[in-house]
């Protein structure tokens, strides 16, 4: 059984999409192992069937899949927890301010007005960070912390759900 590059790509996509932990494939021509990114809270699928055929010959290596893998599938390393919306830089001290309600997120009090906050601003506990509108009711959302706005994670006028990360704040 031969596998072309497209088939390998499909296999990698399948692993990442279904959350399968690992797929191993060995044929005469190739030996392939694809490991999915491991999210501890996701649906646990029972061990995926191993397709093993005799005489594995290393003409096509795992690294081929690795270089083309979507960002969520890591083919070599031990499975690691998949962090949502994690910026590249170290954010272990930053506080993620999450939406307390469901609605539409607005950065400013009105269409022609300035945004409540922008990146780099200092905010105090109780300062209004944004408006979340639901059913024509405009709720002013206040900061729970004092600190600096490091990142704004949602675009103006976009829908947000409960617990959705809105701002990254560097606490004082």
């Amino acid at each position, binding site marked *: 059984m031969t596998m072309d590059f497209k088939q390998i790509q499909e296999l990698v996509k399948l692993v990442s999409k279904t959350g399968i932990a690992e797929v191993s494939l060995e044929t005469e021509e190739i030996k392939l192992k694809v490991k999915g990114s491991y999210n501890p*809270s996701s649906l646990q699928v029972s061990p995926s069937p191993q397709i093993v055929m005799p005489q594995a010959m290393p003409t096509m290596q795992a690294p081929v899949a690795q270089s083309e893998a979507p960002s969520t599938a890591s083919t070599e390393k031990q499975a690691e927890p998949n962090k949502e919306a994690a910026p590249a830089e170290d954010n272990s001290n930053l506080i993620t301010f999450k939406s307390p*309600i*469901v609605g539409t997120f607005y950065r400013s009090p009105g269409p022609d007005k300035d945004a409540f906050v922008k990146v780099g601003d200092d905010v105090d506990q109780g300062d209004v960070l944004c408006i979340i509108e639901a*059913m024509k009711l405009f709720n002013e959302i206040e900061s729970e912390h004092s600190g600096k706005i490091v990142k704004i994670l949602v675009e103006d006028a976009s829908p947000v759900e409960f617990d959705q990360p809105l701002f990254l704040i560097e606490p004082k």
Partner: protein
Amino acid sequence: MFKKILIANRGEIALRVIRTAKEMGIKTVAVYSTADKESLPVRFADEAVCIGPAASSESYLSIPNLMAAAEITNADAIHPGYGFLSENEMFADVCQKYGIKFIGPRPEHIRSMGDKITAKETMRKAGVPVVPGSEGLLESVDDAKVQAKEIGYPVMLKATAGGGGKGMRIVWNEGELEKAYSSASNEAKASFNNAGLYLEKFIEEPRHIEIQIAGDQYGKACHLSERDCSIQRRHQKLIEESPSPFVDQALREKMGDVAVQAAESIGYEGVGTVEFLTDKHKNFYFMEMNTRIQVEHPVTEEVVDYDLIKEQIKLAAGEPISGKNYFPELHAMECRINAEDPRQGFRPSPGRITEFHSPKGHGVRVDTAAYAGYVIPPYYDSMIAKLICKARTRDEVILKMQRALDEFIVEGIKTTIPFHKKMMRNEQFLAGKFDTSFLNSFDFSDLPD
């Protein structure tokens, strides 16, 4: 027809609605609390919106968050399922005001049938036989004593805002009345925030027989025959079946016609259930009306070959009914499988399900949102699956149910499967001779594995 339905519920009923909506080509939005993030409805719906933390009051019961979720997803209809806000008149009203179709009856139907006392009065006026009882709410224990004497013991104290068996007490004589009154009143206040009680004659050897009805927006209603829900523990249904072993065709037609009459008298829209109590002489009395889809709806679906959720959606979209009534062509039975330990007083058993294999095969249906690896959250009700079997005769259904229960593997938590296994071998149950008091004398300690 609707383009997108938001399901304001969770668990197996949310999945049930999503399945039928998909079959109808309608887009679906699942809402979920943080505790239900990994649930099947969330995975199967086209879109999902997190609407709050685990506590129901802040998520599934939060009207603002539900409406906001409908708004940001552009849903044009909301299906409330059962429980939660399905019989909340304010929620139906808010949906109406915001131009989002509440898949269910109008707010006024919910209001008139939701208050048990008003419902009885409305039915009595419509010529429907009702259980003899107090005139309106009881004013005091002394008022209760006077009325109980008039009605004749035994009597039942019931909460006017009640449901699920809460706020109810049987009183066999005047000596027990005072204690029962304060106990029922406190329970009602705690469960429904309404301590109001009324009195009813306690029917002896009562069977709980309910009629499924459907009404369109043009004043016409029809019925889909009865379900016998007499097997109850503390007024919570555990096993339901159709047809009832107690009901012959003559009684079925009589009760069905009265149920249709009741629905048409209030211009009821959507699907609903008219609950009756029958006595040993085959008299039947209106008890209450449930203005929503019910947990046990699959029993009727299996014997009249009808998709009741599809019917609900069609009725809400303004389609008329034919007016034809439906009679059972087969026999079906449902066992409610709860995450409870029947050997320990049905103590709840939440936690992780490590193995889950549901029975399959000819005439076996399982409605569930559980799966191997699923963690049952402790915040909501304990039902994890409904096992429904159907066959040509009641005897065959029971044999099938025995087989299906033996095949049902759930590990990691305790379930009520052992209880159902014992029921399916109980002589009295097999003979169809039971009423709502049946489980009062049931031995729960000696159950199979």
